[in-house]
Structures are given as structure tokens and as C-alpha cells.
């Protein structure tokens, strides 16, 4: 999976599983913040859902994710995390 395909896959999963109404993968900026103002405005419950998505869909090991580790900063940061684990091709 290329990096662009991975990012589209992540965006599609987020839109679907977090019920982000009216959003399309194209409309989500790769660097926009997922939490807080000015981006997708997700919250803590979405964060734990994303952690489970990383485990179920990509087989990621999430034990090392700590508060402030930055993986939730943006779609690019999430893609970095999946790639660093060598799981970009694991999307189920």
C-alpha cells in the first residue's frame, strides 16, 4: 500500500467508524488536527476507538502509545505510526 492509499484508508475508516457526518476522504487535510478546534474536533472516546481500529484493522501493537506521544496529531502522524510498525500492508 502506498502512503496515499494508507492515508485514504485511514480517513475512510475514521469517517465510517467515528460517524463523521458529511466528511469525505478528499475533504480531510492530511495535517489538520484530529482533536481540538480547527480540524475534525474528535474527543477522548474517538481516541480509544482509533486505538482499537489500529489493532483490529492494521494489527498494530499499541502498548507503547502514551498520552502526548503525538500519533493522534493528524492523519499524517497516524500514517507515520502505522508505517513505523511495518503494518501499512496489513489493513484488513
Amino acid at each position, binding site marked *: 500500500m502506498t502512503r496515499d492509499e494508507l492515508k485514504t484508508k485511514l480517513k475512510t475508516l475514521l469517517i465510517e467508524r467515528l460517524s463523521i457526518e458529511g466528511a469525505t476522504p478528499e475533504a480531510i487535510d492530511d495535517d489538520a488536527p484530529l482533536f481540538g478546534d480547527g480540524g475534525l474536533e474528535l474527543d477522548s472516546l*474517538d481516541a*480509544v476507538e482509533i486505538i482499537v481500529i489500529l489493532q483490529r484493522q492494521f494489527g498494530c501493537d499499541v502498548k507503547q502509545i502514551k498520552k502526548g506521544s503525538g500519533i493522534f496529531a493528524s492523519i499524517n502522524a497516524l500514517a507515520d505510526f502505522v508505517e513505523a510498525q511495518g503494518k501499512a500492508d496489513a489493513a484488513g
Partner: protein
Amino acid sequence: MPQANPAAESVLPITGMGQVSAAGTDVAAADARLATFTRGGLRDVTQPVRGFFGETATKPVFSVAALREERPDARLFELLLPALEEALRDAGLSISVLARLRVGVCLGTTTGCQFNMLTNRFEAVPAYRRYRETGAGDTSFAQHYLNSNPAEWVRTRLQTSGPAVCVTDACSSGADAIGIAAEWLRNDVCDAVICGGVDALNPLPYAGFSALGVYSENPCKPFAPDRDGLNLGEGAGILVLETERSRRARGATSRGALLGYGMSADAHHLTAPDPSGAGLRRAIEAAAKDAAIPLSAVAEINPHGTATLDNDAVETAVFDSLLPGVPLCPTKAFTGHTLGAAGAIEAVFGVLRANATKGPVLSTSLAFGGQNTALLLGTTDALPAVRSPVETHTLRVAIQDTFPPGRKARRADRFSRNAVLAAKSAFGALPPGTLPERIGLIVATKHGPHASTFTFVDELLDAPGLPPSPLLFSHTVHNAAAAYAAMETGVKGPSCTLTAFHGVTEEAFRLARCWLASDRAEAVIVISLDEQCAPLFFFVPDLENVLESSLVLRS
């Protein structure tokens, strides 16, 4: 139709208590264990066990090991029965005495009232798998679900004549059941109420709380700076709450008293408490007002104290500002978090502590969906006060499907979306200027949100090694719908979800009238809600779609 409520008493004697938990299999055993309290601290807590659900579940749970599992398909009732029998014996309520009184039954639960084939420890799973593969199969295990409402089970067993409903408000269910019992007694619906809560250890909440990231790998440490989450427990707490008139007529002794209670909705978030603590503060203040005592009189606090970061932080902040210096006695390191039973087991502990300290004890419960409940328990010195009757009327509201879903409800499942539609319709019919804190909300359901529950169970069965969706788990609790309805309308008064197979809507209206008579609210939104989903319809074919919205007001 206008309904008058006769005058009733305010302070209610507790004439019987029973409990089963990891702290002990009766009240005396738990009392001896809790005597290891030091002021503000704990020693000799219960050691939880690991591996309860097999190899994949390794985190600690507080099981009631002394009660052997004779019938794994009926664990809920194995826990409920000894607590019930203890409370009835304590209260001197034999079957013949029960038959002479108007006795209600109100119990909190989360694993009861749920068509969850994991409840019967996997025996039903093969039948459910066959249904999923072929669309057909043995439906006989549905009987287990149809018998799983603990309040209706008690009514059938004891042949009581009063109302019998379960309160399905997640972690505040047990405390809410006691508050509802108080309303029935004060409004002359009952002479005595068997109230409390029961829950059994179950893989569904175990997986759900784990996926939410709030389940500790270690024994839980309520209020410790290094706390990192909760452990689940199981048990039952039962109280016999009675009118003073009935107690005197029977010549029964009282173990203590319910001085007052308060309930509120955060209208903030599906799973997290409002970090400002405003809702919890309102519930505590309402309890003090109800009990007509100043908060400075409180001798001790039994906090909800689950040992999650968020819960204990909110409670600490609220107690520091409202009740500075009052000792905390958190008890979940003895029992684990027993979910729907927690508020009731801790009310029993609260009565024990009130007798020990000779002062009122505050017991708090915080639940999914931002529900807050405060009970004030004490000795029986207080004199009964008298309330004035009020008349009410009910306005049936036509539900409009034109409301935009609203930002906070984006994640809601269909069950909760329907609740939001119904709540918004009723909200639109409120008298202008009604304060959100003065509007109550009751959801009445036979079955609760089963589409999400089945999907969640499917995730557990299909990928046993992987965590299931925490979002789905949050929608398996019956009161998710009330939480979304509160968030989308902003109503912050008392809120609860009632579950029963028989007469649940009538009970919701009765409770709404009680709240108005007790001046807990100026208006109450009542939502009747049930949905069909394919698996439930297959196993329980007489399902109906129900969506109704009503507003109960003073006439």
C-alpha cells in the same frame, strides 16, 4: 388525567439490608472486613483474582468465590437470592407479611435485562453462531433473556403487588433504584420497596471497559495518585425501604434511614463525566436539600471511586469545594466495580458507616451518560416531614423527524437517534423559560439497544484475541439513549432509564408524577422506546417498534 398524591413522609426507615460481594457474602462479613478502614485510608483490601474468563482475560476481577457457580446460566440470581433473603429476614418480611403490604421492587442492573449469550457462559454461543450462519436455529435459549429482568423475577418469586421495574442507568443503577423507591414510598404508591441492584461478572463489560482503556492490569487503587483504572466485581445489594407508618404498624426495627437523595444529568458526554463536576455538585446539593440537612453535617463520604483517572479527579474536585475535610471511604478496593449493584452495595456500607460514625454518610454514583446520583444515609433520629399533593397532566407529543441530528449525537446508534428525535419533540412543547435543571427525563424500554449489543458480541466472538470497539460498547448500555437525549436538548434534571417486559411505560409516567410531586422537576419528558433488530426479532418474535414522546406537567 389529573392525579392527586396524598401527603407522605420524607425520611424513610431502612428495615432490612442484605449484600453479597467480594467483601463478604452477608452484611456482617462485609462489616467486619470494612472495619479495617482507617480514617481516609484502606488496609487489608480484597485480593482480586485473574483469568476469570479463561486465558484471554488476564486482568483482575473481584469474584464472589465463596458462592460457587452451581448454575452458570443463572449467576445473576445466584448472587441476588442470598442478598434478597438476608434483607427480607432482616426486615422480618415473610411471604405472609409481604402479602398484606403494597410492596414494590426496583433493582439496578447492567448484565440483567440484556440479551447477551455470553451471560450464560458460552453455552448459548453455538446456537447463536448457527443462527448467524444459517438464519435459523434453536431459539430456546431466548428464554434465559426473557427471565433476566431481576425486578420481575423477584415480583414473580415473592408475589408482590406493587410496581416492579429495573433501572438500567449503567453504574448509577443501584443508587437510582433506591431513589425511585423513595419516590414510590413518599407518594404513597407502596408501603415497602425491595430496592437495590445486582450484576454478575461478564465478558461483555470486561472487554468493553478494557477497550475503553480504563481497566487496570493491577488491583484498583481508588483516589491514589498512581491509580490507572478500575477492576470489575460482582454482587448484589438489597435494602428494604419502608414508610415510617408501615414500620410502626409492623413493629419492625430500622437499621438506618434514607435521609434524602439527588439525581442529575451532565448533558455533557456519552462516557466521560463533566470535568467541571457541575452535575455531581447539583446531585449532592439536591440530596442535602431533600434531607433538609446542611452539607457540613456529613460525617463521611462513600465516593463512587472507581479508580479511573477521570472519575476520581471529578469527585476529588467536587468534594474539596463542597465538603472540605470530610473523610473519604472508598470501598471498590474491597468489592471491585459491581456496576449496577455498586450504588446499592455501597448504600448498605453507607448505613453501616452512618451507625459507626453517628452521622450522615454521603454515597455518590457516577454513570456512563453523565448521570449523577447522591444518597444521604443516616440513623433514624430525624422526624418525618410532610409534602403537599400536586396534580399533573400528560401531553402526548407527535414526533417530528425533521430535527437535524446534532453534533453531539453523530455517533449515536438508531436506538439513541430515535430517543433524540422523541426528546426534541417533547422539548419543543415545554412551557417557555423552563430551566434545564428543572426538566427530568425518563426512557422506558422493554428491551433496550440490542442492535448494538449483538454487533458488539459479534466482534467478541469473531476475533477473540482483539479488543472490540469501545464506541459500540458505549451503546450497549441501556441509558445511552437518555444520555444523547440529555446532550441534544440540554436537560439536566433527574434522568433515568427503566426496563421491564410488563408495564414499563406506565411506571415511567408514575415516576414522572412522583418527581413533580416531590418538586424535583417542573416538567418530565417521558420517552417510550423499542426497536426491532434482526437477531432479537428472530429469538423474540413478538417485538414491536415503539417510539412515543410525552411531557408530564403540573396541571
